[in-house]
């Protein structure tokens, strides 16, 4: 078969890199968009407190909800990152299968 390591490693790295390059901007765009909304909510909460539109319990609860929502968003960003890594690994594995089959001239994997 005469398959060399570079014939496997190079396409693996390229496939993984391309996959991450495609997925990572989606997570980044999502994070940017959501952080802007969270920043606005914090401004809105401060305004409610300043204008006396909430009592002390409500102010405390709003801040807790804001904190929880921030965490929910961060968990999604983390999840999108994990999925991006999973896709990159699987793209690299697929490139190995494709490279081996090409070298063999027949689909053995």
């Amino acid at each position, binding site marked *: 078969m005469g398959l060399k390591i570079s014939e496997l490693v190079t396409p693996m790295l390229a496939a993984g890199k391309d996959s991450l390059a495609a997925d990572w901007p989606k997570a980044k765009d999502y994070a940017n968009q959501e952080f802007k909304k969270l920043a606005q909510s914090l401004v809105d909460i401060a305004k409610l407190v300043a204008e006396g539109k909430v009592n002390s319990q409500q102010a405390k*609860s709003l801040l807790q909800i804001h904190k929880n929502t921030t965490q929910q968003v961060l968990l999604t960003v983390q999840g999108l990152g994990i999925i991006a890594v999973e896709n990159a690994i699987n793209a690299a594995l697929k490139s190995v299968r494709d490279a081996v089959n090409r070298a063999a001239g027949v689909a053995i994997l």
Partner: protein
Amino acid sequence: MYRNFFRSNKRSCLLLLVTVAVLLAATGCSVTLISAYDEQIDHSATTLQKEMDTFLTSIETAPDSVSGSYEHNRGFYSGYGVELRGLLVRAQSHDKNELSTKQIELMADNLEELRKSHASGPLTPEAVGVYRNLFNQGWGAILKLELAKKRVL
């Protein structure tokens, strides 16, 4: 010490890595780092988002009336809590689903904070808008992650 080991054994390490990759590829293995997409969780989360939005919008339009009071709406909080716990149980039943599980737990805490807010006094229309934005954003985060789990097979 380890850096020198890898430098001097770079070819061996690469060979090992490629061998593992070939073996994985040969067995048709793909790697799964996070749970599969669950259509039921998708639908339930969508429904719960709408229910909360509807509830808050109804409060917004009648904050000082009987219909907008906490006492009149106690049932909403307990019913919504039951639905959330059902969603949590479903999320927990999947392996590698810790992130979504944690998100739903946070949503349950948000519900309790909203309940405490409402029990402490009328919710002004201005405040309701902020609660609604935060709840919608939270549900949006949950749905975003769930939909991202759809794999191209």
